[in-house]
């Protein structure tokens, strides 16, 4: 008998192809939309988190700030010097590397090609601090760093724009009016979290940069890499104390420099992406609701026709339970088919879109199951309960239903 009822249910579904298809479509849209939204949201969050982690979690950046002059006037504080970086490295414990950094945007020229890029003056510690490797060629030698000879390590964007497919090693490019030999090419880093092309730069020894390019002895930023992340707070305090002393700041004056912890930045960006994920979740919930209403509409619209059908079935001898079982099977079949198609579509859709917008594909089982369960529940509830109401009528009232 139960086999017969299942058979009846399937027969009924085949017979009403349009109604079945529309119901399935409603569920498919609901499930797929939620899965795509949440998967892309999770992917974005993951990518941002990974990028921030790639900046190095045990890093500090020291930058000059502002002077507070009497009368509330603010002026830019003086830059650091190489000696500041050297003193930090010498006097503060727990440090792995200190990289002084100065930079300027310049036009670079090779043959007929030219390219405006950011020229960074630093030393080999820059590669340590940024966790960046020289992929071909070499880093600076001790004597190049000390003498400030103009040699450069270039990012892949610079290489691509000046050299195309040619080998850039040992070639001489012009930096403004100066000539500079290329000794290495960095590995590709791609876009930063904030959309900058990180490979669009080149590095020269900082002494050469100061003397021949900048024409001063300024250091704009100092990168400090700690030996481990739990030393960060202590190093930060030590650096602040040291710099106050070196910059002759009296006890009642505020700092005219910042010591930034990468973790602070991480926290800020993470909270932003969390907001983003919450927003996507809300959008997903709305699409699930819309899908649910779609299912409900189709189910309720067909109630009139189905109520008469139920009347006929009751008149020729169906029990209330026969009718209910049939409708339940129908609703469950529609909801499962729709749910499975929706999951397939949602996952394949996200897998397809993720690489297009450069984010990793993150499979989220919970959301998949929630979307499926919700749509299935809507399908079953709105398929089953109107049928139950009809099956409880006197057969003659069901037959006469208009």
């Amino acid at each position, binding site marked *: 008998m139960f086999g017969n009822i299942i058979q009846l249910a399937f027969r009924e579904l085949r017979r009403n192809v349009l109604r079945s298809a529309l119901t399935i479509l409603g569920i498919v849209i609901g499930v797929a939309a939620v899965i795509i939204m949440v998967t892309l949201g999770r992917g974005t969050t993951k990518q941002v988190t990974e990028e921030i982690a790639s900046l190095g979690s045990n890093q500090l950046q020291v930058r000059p700030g502002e002077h507070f002059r009497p009368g509330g006037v603010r002026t830019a504080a003086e830059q650091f010097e190489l000696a500041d970086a050297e003193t930090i490295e010498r006097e503060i414990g727990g440090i792995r590397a200190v990289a002084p950094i100065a930079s300027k945007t310049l036009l670079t020229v090779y043959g007929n090609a030219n390219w405006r890029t950011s020229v960074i003056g630093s030393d080999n510690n820059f590669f340590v601090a940024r966790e960046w490797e020289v992929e071909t060629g070499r880093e600076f030698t001790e004597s190049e760093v000390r003498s400030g000879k103009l040699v450069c390590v270039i990012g892949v964007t610079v290489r691509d724009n000046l050299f195309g497919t040619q080998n850039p090693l040992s070639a001489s490019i012009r930096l403004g009016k100066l000539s500079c030999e290329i000794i290495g090419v960095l590995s590709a880093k791609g876009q930063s979290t904030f959309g900058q092309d990180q490979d669009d730069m080149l590095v020269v020894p900082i002494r050469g940069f100061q003397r021949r390019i900048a024409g001063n002895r300024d250091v704009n930023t100092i990168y400090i890499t700690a030996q481990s992340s739990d030393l960060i707070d202590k190093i930060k305090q030590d650096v602040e104390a040291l710099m106050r002393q070196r910059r002759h700041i009296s006890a009642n004056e505020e700092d005219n420099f910042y010591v930034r912890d990468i973790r602070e930045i991480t926290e800020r960006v993470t909270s932003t992406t969390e907001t983003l994920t919450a927003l996507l979740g809300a959008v997903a919930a709305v699409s699930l609701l819309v899908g649910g209403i779609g299912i409900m509409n189709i189910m309720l619209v067909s109630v009139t026709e189905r109520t008469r059908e139920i009347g006929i*079935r*009751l008149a020729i*001898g169906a029990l*209330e339970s026969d009718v209910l079982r049939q409708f339940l099977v129908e609703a469950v079949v529609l909801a499962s088919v729709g749910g499975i198609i929706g999951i397939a579509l949602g996952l394949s859709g996200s897998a397809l879109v993720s690489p297009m917008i450069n984010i990793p594909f993150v499979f989220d089982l919970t959301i998949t199951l929630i979307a499926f369960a919700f749509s299935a529940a809507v399908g079953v509830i709105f398929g089953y309960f109107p049928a139950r109401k009809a099956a409880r009528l006197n*057969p003659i009232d069901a037959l006469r239903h208009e």
Partner: protein
Amino acid sequence: MIIRSGEEPLVELSNVTKVYGSGQAAVHALRGIGLRVQEGEFVAVMGSSGSGKSTCINIIGCLDVPSAGTYRFRDVDVGELSRDQRALLRRNYIGFIFQTYNLLARTTALENVELPLIYRGVPPKERHRLARRALESVGLSQWATHTPGELSGGQQQRVAIARAIVTEPLLLLADEPTGNLDSTNSQEIMKLLSGFNRDQGLTVVMVTHEPDVAAYAQRTVHFHDGGIDSDTLNQNQVIV
């Protein structure tokens, strides 16, 4: 539920009333009627619209329940049956045909006829055989795979008759079976009903307002304003 054959009438209504609504708006569709139908009878129920004749046949068919009074089907007091027991009574002993045919749309004639057998739990092979035989008996073997939309009104009503008799019921209830048909088709339908009544001893209770159609019955019951006006044997029964 086993219903024994015996001396008592097949259908016996005593003092049955049916009230729709309540208070001031109450409509008394039946005002305490009594009616007996013996096995093998062919009864026509006539009357103007609103006279209670359809309500009466729906109560006999257990599609509706009386507000008061007793209804006995053979030796069973239907008033004491549960919903499911009434459904089983319909399933096993009663066949219906309606003015509007009430076939399942987009469903072939054969599948429509099979439907009551499915609920009876008849295995597929036997089901097909019985359904084909029933369609043959109403002259529609050629139309088994057609859906109601592809059949004429007369053909649809004949499918409905096949569906009603395929379970070999004791009682066939027909609610204005020719109401939507022209006279040629009406005659066809009436010949079928008369034939089943005469050849198989099928008890038929039929509501109609057409005297030509009522003429096929042995007995005519006239309803008026919720009561039975007259109950006479038909002197000029049409014999097929």
